[in-house]
C-alpha cells in the first residue's frame, strides 16, 4: 500500500470531465490500487484492427499518474504535467485497460511517476509512461 486511500483517489477523479470521457475508475485488487479505463467505442483509433488510440492510452496513463500524486498531497494542491513520455510496447485492443502507478519521488515542488498498463494479462504490458508533474499549492 502507498498510504493512499481509495476514497482520496476517487475524490480527485470525480472532479473532472476527462475522467468521464476516459470512463475512468479506481479499484482495490488485494492491497493494490488499480486504475481502470472502461472501454468505449470512442476510444478506438484504428477501426480495422479495433485498436485503442495511442492518445487515449497516453491520456489514461498521464491521468492515472496525476490522480495517484494528487491523492498523496494536501487537498487543493494543483498537479500540472510538465511532461510525459509514453512507450507503446504492444497494440491495445478493444477492451479495458488497467494501470498501476509507482510514485518514484514525491518532492515539495515536483513529483515523478512511472505508470504501466495491461489488458487481459498483467504480465503482457501494453504501454509504459514516465510522468513528471509540477506541484502548486
Amino acid at each position: 500500500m502507498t498510504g493512499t486511500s481509495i476514497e482520496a483517489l476517487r475524490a480527485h477523479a470525480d472532479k473532472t470531465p476527462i475522467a468521464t470521457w476516459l470512463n475512468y475508475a479506481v479499484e482495490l485488487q488485494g492491497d493494490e490500487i488499480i486504475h481502470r479505463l472502461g472501454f468505449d467505442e470512442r476510444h478506438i483509433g484504428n477501426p480495422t484492427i479495433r485498436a485503442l488510440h495511442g492518445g487515449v492510452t497516453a491520456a489514461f496513463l498521464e491521468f492515472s499518474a496525476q490522480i495517484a500524486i494528487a491523492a498523496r498531497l494536501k487537498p487543493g494542491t494543483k498537479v500540472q504535467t510538465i511532461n510525459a513520455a509514453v512507450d507503446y510496447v504492444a497494440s491495445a485492443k478493444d477492451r479495458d485497460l488497467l494501470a498501476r502507478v509507482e510514485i518514484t519521488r514525491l518532492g515539495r515542488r515536483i513529483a515523478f511517476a512511472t505508470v504501466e498498463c495491461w489488458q487481459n494479462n498483467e504480465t503482457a504490458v501494453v504501454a509504459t509512461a514516465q510522468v513528471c508533474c509540477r506541484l502548486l499549492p
Partner: protein
Amino acid sequence: MTAYSAADNATSVATINLKTDHHRAIAAGGRAICEGACVSLRNEVAQMRGAVTDAETGELIASATGAFILSLQKATA
C-alpha cells in the same frame, strides 16, 4: 498523420513512443493549431516533431517528439 504522409508508400503507422512537453494551458473552447514535421525517415522509422499553439495568441501550448514505425508497401517491379 504527418508521419503517414512523409513516406508516400506507407500503408500503416504505429506509434513506438511519444514524449509530450506541456507549456501552458489553453482556455476551454479556445482554438488550437497543431503542426507536425518529419525529422528523419530511415529503416521504416519516422522521427517526428510536433507542436500545438493557441490560434488566437500564437503561444506554445505543448510540443512533442515521437517515433513511428511504418509499414511500407513493397515497390512493384
